């Protein structure tokens, strides 16, 4: 008698746990931390030296695109941009504040995140999760004169999959967005008119030819 009661309790408890697990899989909130490594960029750096300032607010940046979603991209974006800048300049130093700059480099770049946005299948009625990371690069000369304040948007998307969790999909889309930021930087940095003009002034383009 006691054994039958015990068996029923175990079955009910197991069913409740199973139901809870299924419901937690359907949860609409997501907390994601990205610690990925990124591939080394395949590019010949230009003969330019630069100091990159990754301040604390950038290296520990945690995005909250909406009240249910938290994406910790601080560590990953530092790794990604360090890698990309190494492919752009032949001499690079990475510092955490402008006071630490050695002064020997010709450019100073201070990246910051303007905004992170996400879109889920319930928002866009498509079977994709989307992430936008909007960066801003403050580009200065070593004397502190601003060359340009460059807006650099990056985008990543990942398809929705049956029974896949929202966290995994947002993580995947964020990684793709970060990789896109690297691609955008490599593709467009030397096409920024102000940078092109500055390089012409410094006669860097002629030297590299």
């Amino acid at each position: 008698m006691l054994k039958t009661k015990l068996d029923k309790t175990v079955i009910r408890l197991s069913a409740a746990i199973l139901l809870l697990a299924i419901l937690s899989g359907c949860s609409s909130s997501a907390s994601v931390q990205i610690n990925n490594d990124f591939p080394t960029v395949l590019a010949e750096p230009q003969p330019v030296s630069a100091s990159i300032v990754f301040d604390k607010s950038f290296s520990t940046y945690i995005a909250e695109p909406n009240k249910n979603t938290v994406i910790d991209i601080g560590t990953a974006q530092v790794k990604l941009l360090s890698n990309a800048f190494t492919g752009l300049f032949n001499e690079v130093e990475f510092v955490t504040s402008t006071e630490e700059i050695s002064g020997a480099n010709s450019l100073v770049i201070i990246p910051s995140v303007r905004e992170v946005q996400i879109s889920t299948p319930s928002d866009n009625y498509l079977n994709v999760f989307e992430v936008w990371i909007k960066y801003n690069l403050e580009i200065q000369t070593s004397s502190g004169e601003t060359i340009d304040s460059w807006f650099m948007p990056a985008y990543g998307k990942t398809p929705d999959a049956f029974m896949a969790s929202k966290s995994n999909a947002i993580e995947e889309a964020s990684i793709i967005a970060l990789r896109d930021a690297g691609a955008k930087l490599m593709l467009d940095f030397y096409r920024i008119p102000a940078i092109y003009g500055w390089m012409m002034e410094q006669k860097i383009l002629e030297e590299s030819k």
Partner: protein
Amino acid sequence: MKPTIKLGSKYTLKGLLLGLIVGSLAGCSATTTIDEYRPTGEAIDLNTNEKIVVLGRRDAGHYETDREFINCVAKRMQGADIGIVPEQQFIDSIYPWFEPRTAPKGLPRLKRLMQDPLIKGQVDSKAVRYLVWIDGSTETLDQGGSISCAIGPGGGGCFGFAQWDKLSVYEAIVWDMTNLQEMGRLRVDSEGTSYLIGAVAPIPLLTPVKSNACTSLGNQLKSFFSAP
């Protein structure tokens, strides 16, 4: 005298059940069509030290060629005689030049990319001779019926009937990475209907539309190449 049909017989019932299962399964088969274009009817010669990479297009706004499908096609093509470089490995080795933003959409852009000695060196070091671009997706076209499930302390179950149509459309383009030219194109269309019957337990009768598209495309691509 009225004709009578004996349904009580053991064999008749078994036959009916078997007929129902066969009928249901037959209804779950996909219709697949392949169109192929190549300049010559001969297979492309592939040396033992030459490899193929299969990549998915991911620059469209509303869909993405999923990695699972690309891996499936690559697996189909791979054999003792055809060497395949994994998609992610190739994209990482050449980062950032084959990302959705930067990947060449046509041969003129590929030619410009291959003029960069670093990129060409990397492609050569991976021994990639042919690149296969796959672009497409699987979409649910139409769905009908309804099924509801309930669970309670006394047990649970699902009741109802649902059906949906799926369509897979994928296009493959083969590029020669040495001569920088297009070697052929393939297009696969696969369509089928799946059913879900709720009779206490949900009984799925799924049509493997995507899987059929993968098998057909993989086999056809394999026939494009002939290894020594």
